[in-house]
């Protein structure tokens, strides 16, 4: 029975659809407080050559309904030339664009979450776009590394 379970789990882990379970999201914890991490995040996004297009709240009324934090934002960003090229030739990727990172506080620390963009390679046959998705993914990792 245990061996059977192992096989089922192995198949699930090996199946790309499930492999993305671990890789679908990139999660990062910073030991900085929310305002510090937010500043570091936006600085690093800029240093990687991206433009922050919008910082959006999604937490209107969060504290009113008993939440511990109202420090919850989505940061949208991208390089206009890249985004333009992709949305022109691969419009089916538009729902996941521009790039975004969710940032929220957890006590005195800050958590950040982004999609792993490489999982959307299934939506395109174009090699250039696949390479671009790969680079976006690397850049998000690199940005997170900057926000210690």
């Amino acid at each position: 029975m245990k061996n059977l379970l192992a096989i089922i789990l192995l198949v699930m882990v090996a199946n790309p659809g499930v492999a993305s379970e671990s890789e679908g999201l990139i999660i990062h914890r910073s030991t900085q407080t929310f305002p510090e991490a937010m500043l570091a995040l936006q600085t690093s996004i800029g240093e990687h050559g991206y433009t922050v297009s919008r910082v959006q709240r999604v937490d209107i009324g969060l504290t009113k309904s008993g939440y511990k934090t109202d420090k919850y934002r989505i940061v949208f960003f991208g390089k206009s030339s890249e985004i333009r090229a992709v949305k022109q030739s691969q419009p089916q990727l538009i729902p996941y664009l521009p790039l975004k990172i969710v940032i929220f506080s957890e006590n005195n620390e800050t958590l950040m979450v982004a999609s792993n963009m490489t999982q959307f390679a299934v939506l395109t046959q174009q090699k250039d776009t696949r390479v671009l998705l790969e680079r976006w993914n690397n850049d998000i990792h690199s940005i997170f590394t900057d926000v210690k």
Partner: protein
Amino acid sequence: MSHVFIRTASIAGLALALMMAALTANAAPNGRALYENNCSSCHGVNGKGGVGVPLSLPSFLNSVPDSYLEKTIRYGRPGRVMPPHPTLSDAQIKAIVSHLRSFSNGKVPATLEALVKGDIKRGKKLYAQNCSSCHGANGEGGQGTGVTFSRPRDLPVIAPAINNPGFLLAATDSMIKATLMNGREGTPMKSFLKAGLKEKDIDDIVTFVRSFEKIKPSANRIVKNNESPVLVYDSQSDLKTTVENVKNAAKAENFRIIRVQDFENGLVKKGTESNREVIVYFCNFETLNNVLAVDPRVGLFLPCRVTVVEREGKVQVMSINPRYLSSMYNNDELDKFCDEMYAIYTNIIEEATL
């Protein structure tokens, strides 16, 4: 002459390659760095993070063998947030386990494969009396997985899902038995020997817990792995009319329209935005707050958004596929929400593209 040169060069090259190989083989993976990259986001830098169960308690570390930790890392807990780690090497996983061990310096129990053979019928009864209040009638675990900033960290630890295939694969009978005999000091999981059960009772319960392996994985989990990441529909109307249709359809589903904007807004110089892609954002605050309480990571896809796109006179309406998100988050508690959102998105888009 040149021949000799080539030979020396290739010998030097070979020696270098061998040295490099020796170096990399000896360079043990850095467990601490691996932990910080892969685990600390949820479990905290010191293992006290409070997502799911804490990892640093001596009563936990001293009662589980290395094989349990290694398999838990490799396979994760399907549907319970804890992700599998298919790409880490065995050496990397071992290094992470050594790092976990550094949280407490007690004795490490050996892996004992011996099966516990008890009376499953009695075990079922005893389980219902002693365990189901926390772990659920079928071992499905306590509500919530702890990935929530709304949950104060000093609240009791959420009871894990002990019917989870990842748990059952990682845990040996003897580890489960030891957990029931000794409990886990510092958590709500108490010692059932001290609570008055006999060792025979505990064997019966372990046998019943092992029988959870026979529960089939939910159909939902199988289906959601085949979803496309996006929903795309062709519209019969022009862009402007379609945008209005989307707004009306969202309102009809009790959403508030938050903002309608050009896709490129903020990304390019004001006034140069393309007007061939329009985003409609809409929201229902109650749903939003409820779902953020279940898993704050979902904010990545909130508020709700539908994009209307025109290409060569053809108009399409598209959005993320909420069902696809289920597989991204590995959180069964989100499945209901994702199914609901899937119904809402398809209703709105179908209505708008008629």
